[in-house]
């Protein structure tokens, strides 16, 4: 049973940590955006787009958690009994997106918040503001990739 508990710990970490990061990042952008929208309510749509960017890490985390749940049969079947080694392996596989997701969402939130400042003055440069934030997200995508490949690579 220990193996399954470790695997579930992996699920929890993968969902919780990037979720915290995204909540922080999205909140940060929301604060800047609210300031800009006070001056110009018509910028709501543009700022909302920027605010959505640091939210993807939380989704990546949920995604990873979901794949693990499918693999170990928590949803859609009987739960597979896992050895402690298998459980540890799944826990390890969850770590890349858990850790990178947490931090990258925070930093991406900061970049996107600065982008809100950019479009406050130059609304036509929304594309550039988005790209700056997306540069940060790259690393979350890579971590997600590593986690997914690890999970798919493990034989249950």
């Amino acid at each position, binding site marked *: 049973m220990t193996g399954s508990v470790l695997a579930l710990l992996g699920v929890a970490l993968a969902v919780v940590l990037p979720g915290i990061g995204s909540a922080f990042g999205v909140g940060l952008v929301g604060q800047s955006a609210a300031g800009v929208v006070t001056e110009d309510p018509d910028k709501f*749509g543009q700022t909302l787009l920027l605010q959505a960017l640091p939210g993807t890490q939380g989704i990546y985390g949920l995604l990873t958690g*979901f794949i693990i749940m499918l693999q170990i049969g928590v*949803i859609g079947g009987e739960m597979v009994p896992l050895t402690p080694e298998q459980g540890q392996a799944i826990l390890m596989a969850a770590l890349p997106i858990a850790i990178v997701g947490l931090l990258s969402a925070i930093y991406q939130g900061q970049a996107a918040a600065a982008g809100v400042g950019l479009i406050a003055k130059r609304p036509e440069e929304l594309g550039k503001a*988005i*790209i700056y934030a*997306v540069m940060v*997200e*790259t690393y979350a*995508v890579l971590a*997600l990739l590593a986690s997914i490949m690890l999970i798919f690579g493990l034989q249950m």
Partner: protein
Amino acid sequence: MPIVEMKKVLLLAHREEQGQILGLLQKLGSVELANVQSSPDWEELKSLMEPDQPTEQVSPLETRLGEVRYCLDFLQRHFPVKKNFVQQFTGSKLSITRQEYINHVGRCQEVADACAACREADERLVQIRNEEVRCTNFIDELHPWSSLDLPLEEIRSTGWTRTMLAVVPAEGLGGLQEALSEKAEDSFFKLVSQNKDQVLFLLIYPREDEPVIEEICQSAAVSEASFPGISGTVGEAIAATRQRLQALQEEKAALKARVEELLVNRRLFMVYYDYLQNELNKREAAENLARTEAAFYLEGWVPAPALADLTATLEEGADTAVLLVQDPGPGEEFPILLQNQGPTDAFEVVTRLYGSPSTRDLDPTPLMAPFFFVSFGICLSDVCYGALLSTMAFLMSRKMKLAGMGRQLVNLLFWGGLSAILFGVLMGGWFGDLIPIGPLWFNPLDDPMRMLIVSFVVGIIQVYFGMGIQAFRNIKAGRPWDAFFDQGGWYLFLTGLILLILPGGGAIGKWAAIAGALVLILTQGRSQENPVRKLLSGILSLYDVTGFLSDVLSYSRLLALCLATGVIASAVNTMGGMLAGSIVGAVLMVILLAGGHIFNLVISTLSSYVHTSRLQYIEFFNKFFEGGGKAFQPFQIKTKFVDVEEKEAC
């Protein structure tokens, strides 16, 4: 050539026709005016010029513009027009016919009257608001005294006594009463009202006690209250003020109705605002000219296809204009206008968001479009999402009047949707796994390694293609050896390395890589003087292979995003499946499926768009693209509020 060829035009005409010619150019909207002062011939021209003050006529126009803007703001404040979510991105303009435009612009006096009416109403509203505040404060002040049912004008001093209304802090009351009864026993103290902070009272005392009373009052921190100019009892005064407030309310309502009547002028204001703004732009454009007493001279850029139109317009509308046309000189920077035909037009928005190409660049749009199409499709890779996206984009482009980048962006999403359908069919994504139709090629969820390789292959092709474009530019610029050494060497070296890791390509790969490496080692230091440095720079250049590696590895995001779309969709489906079974469950399931898939569509489209753009900007453009050009900004009619339909009604 998608970068439109630019011609330099030099125009000379009589001063009398200046306004008319500028008007023609503005209406035509195909000429970018260049400041004559930055012209190479400026030194010569300068001596001919008479100094002028183009600002002299600006200021009355600006005043009128400010007035109209004020009125629009005023109306917006009282009767706001809200923009919906889509309009915040695309803007919303009133569309009117040219005839209507001309009619509106002619109603100059009416605008002035309406402006005056708006200002009058606004000023009165401000006065009313101030008076309301005053009345409310007055009532607050008087209210504690309302139990004093004496007419206020009767509370006054006589020859022998003095009467005062006063306030004392609550904690001082005991001390005050004690002192009064001890030292001034002839005084009369009457409490009017009291709360936890202060006590209001009436005090009557003989004049001879005045010094004593003053001393007592001072030590108890008593402050006298006076109500000059009020007659009748406090209750009456409050009632009167309430009545006044009521009257103000009524007047405000009447004014509000008046403002609502003025609202019919909003359309007129909007048209007039745009008209004035364009007149102002015309005046400001005159600052680019060189002028003598009798003639003026301007320089500008016009796209070659629009040249014939310009010549014809000037021939017809201006008698004295002389137009000279030149090609841009070698190395002269000209403004960049991108023009792509057919489907690639939509992808132009991706280039434009990055920035204009320089005068030496190729337009990257048609080169990047196929890769953008494929990458976007791989990221979204769902037939149903693609169909929804394309349908929405199609409806938007039909229903809404979009122009410029907004239109291109919507078209881009339309093409992206088509691509997602294509890759959805190949990879078996139909709302994730909701509709069980097998993949035509393979499902990345079953075989992620294979999908990773597909992503890398897309990356290698695009990066190679980018290097090829740079080689082409080198050859075209007359540097074929640069193309051979720089791009050729890398092609050989990288292809060799790739062959090395493929089964069966080892031997050829080894020699190709060695040959490529040798070319690079021997040539990459060719700008150095010292032979040792030449060799060192050559060897060091091999380190750039990490750049190539990271470029290609970056394409692994295609796999990640492709899986993300599919897995989130499956997650939604799984959760929906758990609810099925009863009628309530089925209803909840449908709600959950609809909400979940819409959410996933929005998030996945956003991710696909931004990550695909990034691949173009960072991994592709840096191979050959210089950027930093100046976008073509023609002198034209610019409007903020209205769109004048250009079909001539008259």
